């Protein structure tokens, strides 16, 4: 027998408060209105009052409508039939095909015991020198691209995604424009991976609560595939839209904001998602790449700031290039010691020189005389930008390292590079 509750006490923002009993915290409910059903989630219990966050928003909900409780938390159906399919934030098919008939798995599973995590040690070769040499990407890493509107961050995401050679790709779109969704689809189709891709897409036109559910669904499904031994890549774009949805809802819930309107638990909310990236001991892995657009190109904005504290580095995409400063892969040292013996020396040496080049450029721009040393640095900067930083460059790691040596030899004496003697003796071009 289905039990309905119709004593709705309050409707505000996305939240409906109904009197009911025996309801579990975090459980799902269905709110039935004249316009149809919407899922909702229990976010507060207080005596007999149950507060529900309604996924589709509360527009059109009346105090005469009915609520039914599902007695389980948010779930997502999981089976191999997901592959090649597209869903929305509430888990409904978006591709006009039938619903998935499979057992659901709870979203927001408990954290992985650190003891059961492997040390990440497999480098993902992207053929982008700014990544491979300077900030190597590693399987099971969680890493965002920091960018601003107008940059081609989704393209970069898709490019790395294809290059990563994962068993399964899961795309989570939040506030995505429909065109961008189609572009991803096209890229995956051209890359021949559509058949092993699952997409959860929330567009700017969909209800804001559904945006919040995208990462959880993607990551729950990814985790299941990984437990089966598969290497899963999750692409999330744009996590700033996710954070903004959190902000909107916490303000409606009258939480005291901590910083520019964002809730005090923004860090925790983001971390619980990003930390799903894992290399399981004796099973598969989940790698998470995300896009974070920085409002006002400000990295101290709470969204990029909290993200940077959580993720294992970040790539700054600016002016169509991956910036050498600020970009970081925290896992690079797990892999770059075993690639080639000059990898670390080139990584440090080239960036230190490029930093000096920027200083010389500043001096030049102020109209100061350039010393011979300044001129060498300027030349170096130019070559480095054209032959290494340029995103059109698409070469394997070793070739990129050789290219760096060639540039150094064109500009400097060995001693001036700051690279230690033993490495110079072995690699300096003659």
């Amino acid at each position, binding site marked *: 027998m289905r039990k309905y509750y119709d004593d709705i006490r309050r409707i505000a923002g996305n939240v409906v408060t109904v009197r009911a*009993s*025996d*309801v*579990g*915290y*975090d459980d799902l409910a269905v709110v039935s209105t004249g316009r149809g059903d919407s899922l909702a989630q229990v976010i*507060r*219990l*207080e*005596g007999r009052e149950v507060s529900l966050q309604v996924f589709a928003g509360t527009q059109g909900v009346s105090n005469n409508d009915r609520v039914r409780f599902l007695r389980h938390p948010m779930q997502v159906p999981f089976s191999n039939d997901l592959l090649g399919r597209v869903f929305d934030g509430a888990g409904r098919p978006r591709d006009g095909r039938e619903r998935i008939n499979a057992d659901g798995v709870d979203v*927001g599973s*408990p*954290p*992985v*015991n*650190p*003891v*059961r*995590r*492997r*040390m*990440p040690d497999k480098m993902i070769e992207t053929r982008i020198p700014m990544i491979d040499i300077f900030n190597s990407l590693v399987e099971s890493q969680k890493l965002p691209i920091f960018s601003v509107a107008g940059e081609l961050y989704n393209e970069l995401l898709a490019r790395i995604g294809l290059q990563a050679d994962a068993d399964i790709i899961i795309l989570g779109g939040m506030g995505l424009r429909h065109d961008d969704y189609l572009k991803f689809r096209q890229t995956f189709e051209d890359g021949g991976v559509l058949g092993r891709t699952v997409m959860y897409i929330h567009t700017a036109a969909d209800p804001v609560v559904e945006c919040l559910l995208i990462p959880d669904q993607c990551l729950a499904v990814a985790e299941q595939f990984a*437990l089966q031994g598969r290497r899963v890549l999750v692409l999330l774009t744009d996590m700033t839209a996710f954070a903004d949805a959190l902000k909107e809802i916490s303000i409606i819930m009258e*939480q*005291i*904001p*901590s*910083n520019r309107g964002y809730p*005090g*638990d923004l*860090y*925790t909310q983001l*971390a*619980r998602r990003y*930390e799903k990236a894992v290399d*399981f*001991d004796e099973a598969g892995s989940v790698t998470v790449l995300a896009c974070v657009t920085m409002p006002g190109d400000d990295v*101290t904005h709470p969204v990029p*700031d909290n993200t*940077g*504290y*959580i993720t*294992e580095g970040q790539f700054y995409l600016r002016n169509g290039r991956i910036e050498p*400063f600020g970009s970081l892969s*925290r896992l690079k040292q797990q892999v770059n010691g075993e690639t080639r013996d000059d990898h*670390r020396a080139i990584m440090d040496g080239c*960036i*230190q020189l490029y*930093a000096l080049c920027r200083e010389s450029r500043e*001096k030049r721009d*102020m*109209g*100061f*005389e350039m*010393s011979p*040393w300044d001129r060498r640095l300027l030349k170096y900067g130019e070559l480095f930008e054209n032959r290494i930083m340029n995103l059109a460059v698409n070469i394997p790691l070793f070739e990129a390292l050789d290219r760096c040596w060639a540039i150094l030899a064109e500009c400097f004496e060995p*001693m*001036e590079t*700051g690279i230690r*003697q033993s490495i110079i003796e072995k690699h300096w071009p003659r």
Partner: protein
Amino acid sequence: MNGRIIAVHGNLVKAETSTRVVQNSVGYCVRGDGTRLLSEVIRVRGNVADMQVFEETRGLRVNDPVEFREEMLSVTLGPGLLGGIYDGLQNPLPKLAEQVGYFLTPGQYMTPLPTDNKWTFSPAVQTGAAVQAGDTLGTVPETLFEHAIMVPFGWRGTYKVQRIAEPGDYTIEDEIAVLSDDSGQEHPVRMRQTWPVKLPLCVARQRQMPQDPLVTRVRIIDSMFPVVRGGTYCIPGPFGAGKTVLQQITARHAEIDIVIIAACGERAGEVVETLRDFPKLQDPRTGRSLIERTIIICNTSAMPVAAREASIYTAVTLAEYYRQMGLNILLLADSTSRWAQAMRELSGRLEEIPGEEAFPAYLESRIAALYERAGVIELKDGRIGSLTIGGTVSPAGGNMEEPVTQGTLKVVGAFYGLSRARSDARRYPAIDPLESWSKYRGIIDPAKVAKVRRLLARGNEIKQMMTVVGEEGTSIEDLTTALSADVFDNCFLQQNAFDEVDGATPADRQIFAFDKLLEVLELEYAFADKEQARRAMVLITDLIRNWNYAAADTDEYRDRLAKIDRFIATKGQES
């Protein structure tokens, strides 16, 4: 069951009870499926207790039973802690992994110490002896140390030893002594005892002034901004500036007996690195595996927030316990900001009046009270124990004007400010030599340190000036000064953490290298032109850096040192 749930909001549960409730006592919220979720009473109003649940509250219902206990949130103390990997509530993670699998399922708790291990006990007192809380009754060997079995710290007054166990093998559950109090009542003592984490554990004759340098083998710390045993320091810095790496290398190289790592609200991956690496790494001072002197407490960012707040206290209590054995302990907390944020989340749910950036008004006093648990103590038998606390701070937006950084700076003895500019330019460790400070005295004569600090400051001024007047407007003397400051920065302050030799510099080598650099910096150079000055400085930088990479007592070392001496002898004229 002596209570029932009346409200659930996030990890905050309100429970109604008709019995006595003790503030800060623990309790269990019992979910419909029988799972018991550990909680702590954090506010009592009439017959309603507010409890923070240390687990996800998913599935709890109104009217679910609550079990209140009398005891406060406590840790178990005894042999077997060293090498342990615990969550914030001291559940042993390896054992949980064995029994529960990949995930940290709510409501799974395990005893922190192995109960079937046998420890070889040697009594240290005789029947009839008078003892007090903290006095050693006997010892058991634990890895490198004689682990003292002490009279429970909470026992007040003087006791008489009625029975003491014979030398032999015992488990932590076996009775190893029986003590009688004034009224003649007998109390059994086991090897394990408990202590409430939020109360400082300190049984001492007196606290002493910390002054013994704690060598970390990080040059910029030991030589320029030293820390001492029993002192405190903080490392604020924006993300990616190197806070965690600095903590990790300190955990490896610090010249200290025991290191306690509190991984608080940060990445699980970083804990994995430590727990996979440390068993394989050798402590060069003892020849034993590093894990044998380490305890890891981790509540990483995806683990429940309330337990994050507790984890710091769990860690500091274990540290204090070993200090009672006359050992030197180093507690590394990464990051104290996450601990502060956990307080903020809870305070918000309790609807307390928020302070700056929504942190609770008591934030500063909590920070101060935590660092106050560090210190040097003289035990009742005259031995000395110390607890040093170093915490990272993760200021929002890298802006150190925020409440956690400011509250911390008021109470610590040393400040290592990490700078984004330095980490961007890969100048590691990215400790800003102009902004950082230490109130302690280290291994280098302070007069020499002051000299170098003046040079660095002057070098910085000249560089600022050069951005206005250019190199052409700068005298060759000033240019040489600026370049000399760079030499010191490149050759001494920066250190390659991933290099076997350069990564850790022992104290004697630091002292020698510091003096050698002073010689270089104080040379009376007579360069013909600026290009020659620059070339000389490039040369000496290259020489010293390569010397840094050479292991002591090798030909390479001697050869490079000879070249440096030659540079000094010719005042850099031969470059």
